[in-house]
């Protein structure tokens, strides 16, 4: 289909016959990657917040992802593979979503002026989605790189040391707000964009979706803040033993690599 286009850039014969199918596919991929990322972030939050149930709970979740309970031995490489998939999704999503960014100051100023004049919630929410999406470019990168390269350093003490003694908490705090705002608005927008759950009274559905969106955002922010506080507390307590790995009492020290 694209052969002639690829020979003469921008003026292929295929274009003369039929409009490219690419915009349709890119739109779907943008939404699909956003959806998977947002759902992943929910799961991620539940796993991370296992620390609220205690160090052993978080250790168990971590080891589960490292295949410890299947292979009888931890393979942090599994985590790297999962992280690599997330990185790929994020890169694709960001590359597609960036097409919607204001491309120059004039567009940004126009949008902001329009937003202030309209005082219209969905218009304002998109702006925050844009701002948080932009922030995520920078905030997500260090975290993902760390997880990709040092997947073995996840655990009750290991993570807490990183949060407190290695000063990662400001990044996590910003990341929490950016992801929750961005993902929450994103999921709501996905539903109205594709007309999901519209039913017989789409306006009522939209009101409910909006209420749900806010409820979820508040819930995950609260859970996230409580979780971060827990890691900070453990990090402070553990500050004089930085670098020590966590080994639950129930496990022989030699069993964990």
């Amino acid at each position, binding site marked *: 289909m694209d052969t002639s286009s690829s020979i003469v850039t921008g003026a292929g014969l295929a274009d003369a016959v039929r409009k490219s199918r690419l*915009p*349709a596919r890119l*739109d779907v991929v943008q939404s699909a990657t956003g959806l998977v990322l947002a759902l992943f972030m929910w799961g991620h939050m539940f796993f991370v917040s296992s620390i609220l149930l205690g160090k052993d709970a978080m250790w168990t979740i971590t080891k589960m992802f490292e295949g410890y309970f299947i292979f009888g031995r931890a393979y942090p490489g599994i985590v790297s593979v999962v992280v690599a998939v997330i990185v790929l999704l994020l890169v694709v999503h960001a590359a597609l979503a960036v097409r919607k960014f204001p491309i120059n100051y004039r567009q940004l100023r126009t949008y902001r002026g329009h937003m202030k*004049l309209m005082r219209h919630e*969905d*218009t304002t929410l998109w702006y925050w989605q844009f701002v948080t999406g932009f922030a995520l470019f920078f905030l997500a990168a260090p975290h993902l790189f760390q997880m990709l390269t040092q997947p073995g350093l996840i655990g009750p003490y290991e993570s807490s040391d990183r949060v407190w003694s290695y000063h990662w908490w400001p990044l996590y705090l910003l990341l929490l707000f950016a992801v929750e705002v961005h993902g929450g608005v994103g999921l709501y927008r996905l539903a109205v964009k594709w007309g999901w759950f519209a039913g017989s009274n789409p306006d009522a559905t939209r009101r409910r979706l909006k209420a749900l969106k*806010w409820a979820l955002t508040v819930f995950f922010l609260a859970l996230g803040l409580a979780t971060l506080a827990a890691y900070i507390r453990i990090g402070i307590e553990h500050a004089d033993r930085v670098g020590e790995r966590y080994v639950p009492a129930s496990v022989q020290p030699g069993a964990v690599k």
Partner: protein
Amino acid sequence: MSMFRPTATHKVIPLVPADGAQPGNGGRIRVHAMRYNPRDPGNAPRLQTYELEQAEGMTLFIALSEIREKQDPSLQFDFVCRAGICGSCAMVINGRPGLACRTLTKAVGPDITLLPLPGFELIGDLSVNTGKWMRAMSERLEAWVHMKEAELDLTRIEARMEPELAEQIYELDRCIECGCCVAGCGTVRMREAFVGAVGLNKIARFRLDPRDTRDDDDFYELVGDDDGVFGCMSLLGCHDVCPKQLPLATQIAFVRRKMAAVGFR
């Protein structure tokens, strides 16, 4: 928690006065209207304030007419039908697009700021050339029933249409091309080539029409790109300001699903 407002306060004429407005007659209102003549080189846009007595059941259109009659004959604004049918009197009322003839001063006053609809060619003051924009849009989207040449027989009796279908088409045909959805759309404001909700609604309308022989591949040629339906960022400003309460959100989502499906065929 939710700040959700499904409709702009000035969207429909409310039967009861909006909160805070004095009931019944009276009270003075101040109309702050943008004054600007784009053809006058030394001229800069400014707001001019007119004060007047609020009459019972006064609409913005009545207020503007009174201003033009008694205070300032040079003030430019458009109207034809005075009944929300022609779409000429759309303007930005306290920040949101709406129809002047369908807005009670009581519901938006006592201080009312009026701006011309953005996104359209400014004729002067509050008057814009929506017609030119709408015509270009119609031509671009070929917003008319397409029949095959061979089948075009004007003597033949038109095929019957199911009443439910006719009703559905009529629902979308209620669009008065006022331009509020365009002015209320952050996407069109940033990217002028974007078709806007009014255009996507037309596609939905002709897609329903059994007399129109175009299929989804044909419609894809018209709106299957980022200036078309995939450019819409689902801000739903259009839906929330449309003075005819057209179901724009669901129609755009519907067109989007159909056009996305074409992309995977």
